[in-house]
């Protein structure tokens, strides 16, 4: 009987000691209130976040850019005009030609805005870059002149270039065929020589649309798209004509230089004619190589994306007009 009491007391002790009440769950210690949205935030939400699931970061976030660079965020007032230009020229154009859901399906998840130049210590500048198809950093937001067509195109062409990479990462283009067009002339030293005109002349004569296109075949492809979508058909044709003209001019100039100071007018005339004739095939070849690349670009857009790039080129040009003051 005595033992029963002992057991009872012990059991009661257990129940009492284990009768522990957890504190009730209270509100989070973290600030979970929805941030107050400014008119800029609301505009970006309505025009980018909700329809396209693209987050536009305009307030400084050190994790989004290279800390070793001296960069800074844009003026608050410049955010909406810049992003309106991007939307009108890039998103609206693709949607108009490729279908209303085109950009919704393939898009970067984040656009990061930087106010000024991304100036390298050697004086060159980087216009933008894309990371793994997820985010695009856009520089020079504060430097857009909306009364100047070239200035607006200069800003948006970064998006056209980087978006091409994102499209390529989603659906491959025929890289094997593309890189066989100018296989030997890709170089990591694309930025040499320092003189921009000289650099362009070399790249053009080798069958590249820009100097930067020489870096590798994916950049070459993106530069082709960027050039097509940053110019009207007429302007694009003029660029190719100018490439021919400059190749011949440079050949003539070199021939005259080779004559030396004692050359007569007749010597110069003969040398000019000879250089023109001999440089013509080189000029034709250079433009032909660029046209071959253009054909692969057009084929990629048509077959893989169901977009007529020449129609897209026309729509982009029309939409540029909409944002020019």
């Amino acid at each position: 009987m005595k033992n029963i009491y002992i057991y009872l007391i012990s059991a009661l002790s257990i129940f009492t000691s284990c009768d522990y009440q957890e504190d009730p769950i209270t509100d989070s210690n973290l600030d979970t209130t929805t941030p107050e949205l400014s008119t800029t935030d609301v505009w970006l939400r309505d025009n980018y976040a909700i329809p396209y699931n693209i987050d536009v970061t305009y307030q400084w976030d050190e994790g989004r850019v290279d800390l070793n660079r001296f960069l800074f965020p844009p003026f608050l007032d410049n955010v909406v005009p810049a992003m309106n230009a991007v939307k009108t020229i890039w998103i609206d154009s693709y949607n108009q030609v490729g279908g209303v859901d085109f950009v919704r399906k393939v898009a970067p998840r984040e656009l990061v805005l930087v106010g000024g130049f991304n100036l390298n210590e050697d004086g060159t500048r980087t216009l933008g870059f894309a990371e793994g198809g997820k985010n695009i950093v856009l520089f020079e937001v504060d430097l857009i002149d909306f009364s100047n067509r070239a200035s607006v195109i200069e800003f948006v062409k970064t998006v056209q270039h980087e978006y091409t990479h994102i499209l390529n990462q989603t659906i491959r283009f025929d890289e094997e065929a593309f890189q066989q067009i100018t296989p030997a002339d890709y170089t990591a030293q694309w930025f040499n020589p320092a003189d921009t005109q000289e650099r362009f002349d070399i790249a053009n004569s080798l069958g590249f649309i820009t100097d930067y296109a020489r870096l590798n075949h994916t950049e070459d492809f993106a530069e082709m798209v960027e050039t097509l979508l940053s110019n009207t058909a007429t302007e694009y044709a003029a660029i190719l004509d100018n490439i021919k003209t400059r190749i011949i001019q440079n050949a003539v100039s070199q021939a005259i230089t080779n004559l030396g100071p004692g050359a007569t007018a007749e010597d110069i005339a003969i040398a000019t004619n000879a250089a023109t004739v001999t440089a013509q095939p080189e000029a034709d070849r250079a433009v032909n190589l660029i046209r071959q690349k253009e054909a692969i670009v057009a084929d990629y857009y048509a077959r893989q994306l169901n977009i007529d790039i020449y129609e897209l080129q026309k729509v982009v040009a029309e939409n540029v007009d909409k944002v020019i003051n």
Partner: protein
Amino acid sequence: MKLIKSYISIISIIIFSLLIVGCEDNNDPELLFDDTPAVRIQKDIDELRNTLKSSPDGWKINYFTGVDRGLGGFTFLFNFLNNKEVIMDSDFGNPDINRRSLYDITLGSTVKLTFTTRNVLHELSDGANFPNNDFIGQGYRGDFEFLLVSYEGDDIIFKSNRNRSNIIRFTRATADDWTNLDTHQTIMDVLANSGGSLGYDNAGNVSKFNFDSATRYATNTDGTAPDFGIAYTPTGIIISPAVEVNGIEYSEFTMSADETKFTSSDGLFSIEIIKAPIDMSQAWLTAARPGFVPQAFIDLFTAAKTTHDATFAAFPLSDIFDVGGSTLSITFGIGGTIARHGLNFSGVIGDPTLLDVSVGAPGTNWQFVPWFDPMVNYIADNAPYQVNQTSPTRVELTSEADPTITFVLLIL
């Protein structure tokens, strides 16, 4: 049997005791602080935000962005209007007091104040806005993200997020700070128009500096003292690093009424603006003839000419030569060409009537005429000179050490 029962009882008691002890609620960690980390961080953020907003006239910083890199100080005023917006003014760049930009306080490596949209402060961080070519891509190496270090009295101490060794002190601004910012320009103008030559006498050791208005930095020219950066105040300058004189560190100075020097508050130490008493960048000339230069100089000239004309017969040395001019040099005519050597002209600390001259760098063709060196050294060795300008086109330079040595310079 009884023994077994008592064992059972004892074992049962032990087991129950263990259970009782085991159920004791002692699982919570002992807290060093009253709150959880999340709460403490939020409190720190709120405290900083409230402190920043609490100053009725905002905050002031003298921001030395890179004294170790050759950059001086820049004054900024901030007024934190609410939880998100701030206005700024500055003695640098293109401030717009009406521009509201955004700021935020977040947790970085510690509590961090970030000016998240552009305002005048960001001009220091614009790689394309650089004071000279050494800073291409770097601007003024400024930051607009500041990590909270501590509170010291009314001040808040931050360090730059980009350069963790750079401490920035936020002090409470006054209404006068906002109105006085324009008067910084007066000090800037005095220094910018001074010719850029500064100097001080530290317990008998004289040091000279070249001041660059673009970088706001004074570089020691004679290897006698550390360089220093300058920030402007309404009444003078603040320098960093401070100068130590007789065990006292001086960093704040007031400009004298005659705008010739900056003096410490105890009046014991000054940084002087060294102005040459005459503009030597004009086209002065003289001749190795009596009445123009001392006989000792004529003797040196004669010796040099003898050697020179014997060596370079086609390039005879002319006895009329330039001193000063746009190249700040001594320039001899030799036949159809010249031989040139740089000269440094400056004022003298404590005596605005004296002109100091020191030997600069060799220039055009000097490597061919080493026999000219004694003439250059003679001019420098007898400096400084008392300046007696008898007309706008005639000046007499008389050696302070030897009054018998006088050079007469003319502008023709």
